[in-house]
């Protein structure tokens, strides 16, 4: 199995922290457009296996995240930033599940 890369999209602390433990791809976008651009860039990379994005940034590009989440790879995961979780991850997951099985499930 070829090794896949991990990328993180977040704020300074997030990118630095993960950089320390070996996540080499990271970006700190300053606007929703930049966030979207970075997301698509990582998504299109065939070696990319996992994309981490902070909930705060994810909520600015929610529609793109939901669209891209339809693909099995790379996996897109929402993580809290240093200020804590905003619950956005729940919204994205609920929406995906609702689209698939047609019922609203809580978490």
């Amino acid at each position, binding site marked *: *199995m070829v*090794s*896949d*890369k*991990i990328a993180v999209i977040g704020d300074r*602390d997030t990118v*630095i*922290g*993960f*950089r*320390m*433990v*070996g*996540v080499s791809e990271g970006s700190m976008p300053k606007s929703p457009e930049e966030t979207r651009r970075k997301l698509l860039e990582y998504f299109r990379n065939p070696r990319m*296996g*996992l994309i*981490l994005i902070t909930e705060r940034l994810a909520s600015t590009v929610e529609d793109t995240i939901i669209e891209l*989440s339809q693909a*099995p*790879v790379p*996996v897109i*995961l929402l*993580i*809290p*930033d*240093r200020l*804590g*979780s905003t619950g956005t*991850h729940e919204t994205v*997951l609920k929406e*995906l*599940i609702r*689209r*698939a*099985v*047609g019922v609203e*499930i809580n*978490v």
Partner: protein
Amino acid sequence: MSKILPGTKTTRMELLALKNRMALAERGHKLLREKRDSLIMEFFNAIAEIKDAREKVNATLKDAYSALTQAKMIMGPSRVVEFAYASKMRADLTISTRSTMGVRVPVLSVDQENPALPYSLPDSSAKLDLMSSKFRDALRTITRLAEIESSVKRLALEIERTKRRVSALETVVIPRLDATVRFVKLALEEREREDFYRIKMVKERLRQKVPNS
């Protein structure tokens, strides 16, 4: 009223063929229903695990961020950045798939290389070590969560597909076959009756020709 399959010949052979198809469709329907139910069970199991995994991620990340803040306070933010970029730690992700009931579900594992001396020791502080170890833990819990969330999504999609196929069989395929079977049966019976009647007529006529038989 379901549409009868166009072009069916009203013969006994056709009836046999149709009955076979019907049996096949009904067997398929039963199997699909079972598949749907098993998938739904797996789905709910995975959903239960998600909550737990998500909480772990939140907890480990919280610790990691606070360790990071402490390291920044002690060493200054730019030193922390330097060390982070110079760090020799690696995280290699491996994604493979396993099959649950015909659904390809991802398996994620992260191989974290922690060389004995990832950064120069005398210049850094214990807080940096703490921060590294916390972020490594966080990455592990994150990988697990990514795996579970991904499984949930795959299962959800497969459940939807299976539901559609069950529904298609129930509302279209089987009723159509059923209607066609009945149509052919009816036509065959009608022909038998006609034949029976025709034979009777012929017998009658023969009897009239030979009145004293």
